């Protein structure tokens, strides 16, 4: 990433650039969802796209997630490359049948005749005091489904590079963004540079030797903050940002664990059958001998999301909980 002319943009701008570039590149790409056109996006990710690409390709829908997600599947069956925006992935639950049953099953069910090149994107995971219905971290629900791919960008650079890759992928890909990250800033290559980040490639955010911290999406900043504090105490953390949940970069995880022998997974979903549960299983199954301590997980508490701010903060993963878990695995 030592490219000259790096510039700083927001996560929101990065997604907007990715959409604009892919719309420009391929006439089969279109964006459809609630408020994406005239309103410029509920979170302004699609700002300016209607003006630039017109109403044929930037399409406002009524509040009918099942309907327009299903339309995306149909359009993809006959060769278009839809980008379907869910105002939040909490609303994707209304379209669960299309995302889980139609999009990923079609290829197998048709004996290989119909692949579905579709991108479902939008914010995922808890934001701030939105209550139980609007705070779902859906990655663990969708990760259970063969045929789907899932990525969880944590930085503007990853947001742009992963979304562009998702749109070009010939399969259904879920790009799980984050409302809390939309205004965050980060360094990125100049506009002229084609930025594609492969699905299934984790990134080492910070090298360390004492403990591996596995994180993704909103928990990356928690992991980095915790790693900084741990360094002050003399504990050196290797921080791995998964970037994709499915496919999962297992090798990156094993490389780190072979070095540190201790692991804490910090995830934004709930603990029961959460993403960390699967990673934990794979680590103990594949490199059990490398472990010097049980793998620990920091996730949400297993409760519906409360509205009250103090209660909400209490159930979410944070640096303090993560540091406590690191202390445990390091017997510190």
């Amino acid at each position: 990433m030592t490219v000259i002319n790096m510039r700083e943009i927001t996560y929101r701008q990065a997604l907007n650039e990715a959409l604009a570039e892919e719309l420009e590149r391929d006439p089969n790409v279109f964006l459809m969802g609630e408020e994406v056109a005239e309103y410029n996006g509920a979170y302004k990710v699609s700002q300016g796209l209607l003006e630039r690409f017109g109403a044929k390709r930037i399409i406002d829908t009524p509040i009918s997630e099942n309907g327009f997600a299903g339309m995306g599947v149909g359009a993809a069956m006959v060769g278009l490359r839809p980008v379907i925006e869910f105002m939040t992935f909490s609303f994707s639950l209304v379209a669960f049948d299309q995302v889980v049953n139609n999009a990923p099953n079609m290829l197998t069910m048709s004996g290989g005749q119909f692949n579905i090149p579709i991108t479902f994107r939008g914010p995922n995971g808890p934001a701030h005091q939105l209550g139980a219905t609007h705070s779902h971290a859906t990655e663990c629900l969708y990760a259970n489904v063969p045929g789907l791919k899932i990525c969880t960008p944590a930085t503007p650079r990853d947001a742009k590079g992963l979304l562009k890759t998702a749109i070009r992928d010939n399969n259904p890909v879920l790009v799980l963004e984050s409302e809390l990250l939309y205004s965050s800033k980060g360094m990125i290559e100049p506009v002229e540079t084609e930025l594609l980040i492969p699905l299934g490639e984790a990134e080492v955010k910070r090298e360390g030797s004492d403990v591996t911290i596995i994180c993704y999406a909103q928990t990356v900043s928690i992991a980095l903050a915790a790693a900084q504090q741990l360094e002050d105490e003399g504990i050196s953390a290797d921080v791995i940002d998964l970037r994709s949940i499915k496919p999962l970069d297992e090798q990156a995880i094993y490389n780190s664990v072979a070095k540190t022998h201790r692991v804490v997974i910090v995830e934004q979903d709930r603990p029961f059958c959460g993403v960390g549960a699967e990673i934990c299983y794979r680590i103990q199954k594949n490199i059990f001998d490398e472990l010097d301590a049980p793998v620990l997980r920091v996730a949400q508490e297993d409760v519906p999301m409360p509205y009250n701010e103090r209660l909400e903060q209490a159930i979410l993963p944070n640096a303090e909980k993560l540091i406590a878990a690191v202390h445990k695995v390091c017997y510190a």
Partner: protein
Amino acid sequence: MEPAEQRDEVDMLWLMLLIRRFEERASQQYQAQKIGGFCHLYIGQEAVVVGAIAATRDDDYLITAYRDHAHALARGTTADACMAELYGKTTGCSRGLGGSMHYFDKAKHMYGGHAIVGAHVPVATGMAFASKYRSEDRVTLCFFGDGAINQGAFHEALNLAALYKLPVIFICENNLFAMGTSVERSTSLKQIVDRAEGYDIPGVIADGMNFRDVRDKLTEVVNSIRQDPHPAFVEVRTYRYRGHSMSDPASYRTKEQLEQFRMDDPITRLRAQLTREEKLTNEKFDELDKRAKKTALESVKFAEESDEPPLEALYDYIYAQ
């Protein structure tokens, strides 16, 4: 591409016969436990899909629900590929991975075979969206049963299709029963076609026991859509002679009702019309029927002699390259 009105009626009668004889044979093989899973037969409803085929082009999109054998056969998928799919063989139209409810044939523009009631109605709407997006004059034929009209997906799709003026024909095959629940017990309207009015979509009723009525009503609808894209709704009144699936004795309806519809059989009717008009002889009909029976029987042989999909096929189609 062949204009609709030139499709030969004797050819259409042949398709109806092929569908019927194929399904009678499938029913036997199911009872002999050669076929697994669910198996929903179309017998009695043949004039619906064949009437629609007669009104459209080969490159128009077609998508349907789980009672789908007839739709594939009518589109030209071979009886061999259809029977092999029921047997779960690799020569099946979905390579043995879809089964009775999930027939697909891309080359014939047959887009499934969808078994969650109502869930393919938005998918059909998206296919029509793609046609309009590319400024093609194709129509999408979306078949579903009377049970689908009470699903949310159906309502969302009709509103979207009307809003975006998409070239899709929603064809409700009203066979009076959603599994064992009659339309009167499931639907708050006297006439299903009135659903369309709620979305400002033009609605038409066709007699599903009469091939010519289905074809002519649909031809009018298709012509109108080709000139200016818009959705349409056609309620086709029909009847399935068999139960909902192979395990259903259909005790929720009367023998008299069944007999009444059988008296109005769509194959018998078209045969009589063609005979009266001297377009078909008894010899020709017998020959067609014999050929249909033979084709069905041969498809069983083909299916039985075909290979099972290899175990690796499990992983072949999860992700496309």
